[in-house]
């Protein structure tokens, strides 16, 4: 399993840079990944999504879909795209230290 030095610590990642052990996540790691993803400042709105993903993943064991983020997390889809341009769930799940959302079917 590859590792990566980020924010002063070493974390295990997969080939696409997603953390493989959520317990290695810290806010500082999240901020550093955000910078790599082109988000230089994580605002409260950015964190709101990250925290929803972490909570929902912990409760259900699967990554929520955009539909679920909207219906259960209460965050409008348009806002997600404004916060995380290009791929809201792919970026925010990486920042959250969670697996890449699989459209597994």
């Amino acid at each position, binding site marked *: 399993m590859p590792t990566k030095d980020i924010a002063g610590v070493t974390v295990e990642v*997969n*080939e696409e840079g997603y953390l493989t052990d959520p317990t290695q996540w810290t806010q500082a790691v999240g901020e550093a990944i955000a910078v790599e993803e082109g988000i230089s400042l994580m605002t409260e709105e950015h964190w709101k999504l990250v925290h929803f993903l972490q909570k929902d993943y912990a409760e259900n064991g*699967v990554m929520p*879909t*955009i*539909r*679920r983020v909207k*219906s*259960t997390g209460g965050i409008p*889809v*348009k806002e*997600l*795209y404004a916060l995380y*341009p*290009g*791929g809201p769930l*792919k970026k925010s799940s990486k920042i959250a230290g969670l697996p890449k959302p*699989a*459209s*597994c*079917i």
Partner: protein
Amino acid sequence: MKQLVILGAGTAGTMMANHLVRKLDRTQWGLTVVDQHATHYYQPGFLFIPFGTYSEADVRKPKADFIPKGVTHIQEGIDRIKPEENRVVLADGRELPYDILIIATGCKIAPEETVGMTDEGWRRDIFDFYTIEGAVALRDRLKDFTGGKLVIHLNEMPIKCPVAPLEFTLLAEAFLTHKGVRDKTEITYVSPLSEPFTKHNCAVVLGGMLDEKRITFVSDFNCERIDPVARKLICYDEREVAYDILVTVPTNMGDACIARSGMGDELNFIPTDKHTLQSNAHANVFVIGDATNLPSSKAGSVAHFQADVLTENIQRFIAGKPLDPGFDGHANCFIESGYNKAFLIDFNYDVEPVEGAFPIPVVGPFKLLKETWLNHMGKLAFRWIYWNLLLKGRPMPGITTKMSTVGKKLNKQKGA
């Protein structure tokens, strides 16, 4: 007398009725199937209707022909399930008590979920091919098509038969070439996914085909709305794709009766154990086919493999034995690629589609992840198998419930 009730007489529910009528002690158990519709459609055949390969008559038969003797068949809508009271309320107000419930209510398109989809453009220049009405309307429109922008669009995962939109795209390319209007047509495939298919190995092979056939792939496109007047799809990130004909696979949702029963997730799919098919919430409720929330494909082959596991588990549940965690996510799909050729893929929860032979390892006759004429013939032959073997719960020679890895080139699997 105890009661086992099956909700839905589609592929999964019909198979379960045929399996259980032979396995249950009929002096102890009554068996009832409920479905509001009279006609059983061979849904894989819808793909061929827009191109005139199949007619409506080729894909429909009365549901009653497939419900075995000894099973009570009720043709009525379902209002709701009351799982705490072990009863089902029908649309006409009748109540059916049950000891065991099997939910096989499937999923269907929900075009109203997308703003602009069902406005004035619906079935004028916006079509689906997941319903008989949509497939027939599209056939009539394609007949007169003289060229322009043909856009095939996948709105949201999960969908029934995840390969169908790609198959449609490849078949349309061949159809338009044959018709002599391919050079006047731009074909675009629009998907919310990053790759043309959900399984990476397969996406690489099929993505190559899209390039080869000059089909543009637009990825990561989450449709915010459709403008039916300007005829364009609009993404949340403000990208736009213009069309003359839009062939869309709308959002798929579980049946509305699941929402009314408070048993589903945000898409009305029922949280289900991915190996035993028992409902997560109620021990005497089992779920099969497209109605589940499982991370397996929503496809007839999957329901077929699930039916074997569920038949075993219903008997174990009745006997008070532990359930068999036997469902491995096995799916097996032909992928039509046009010009009388097709691919075949075989995969499960853990193993991606890889090269090999099916159903007999090494021998075949079908080749996995390869484009062959024989695979295409297999797809066409499958309609007979569906009506005559699969729905009736008869064994299919050489096809096993659990996926076989013998003779497969597993080293080609990504991330295994």
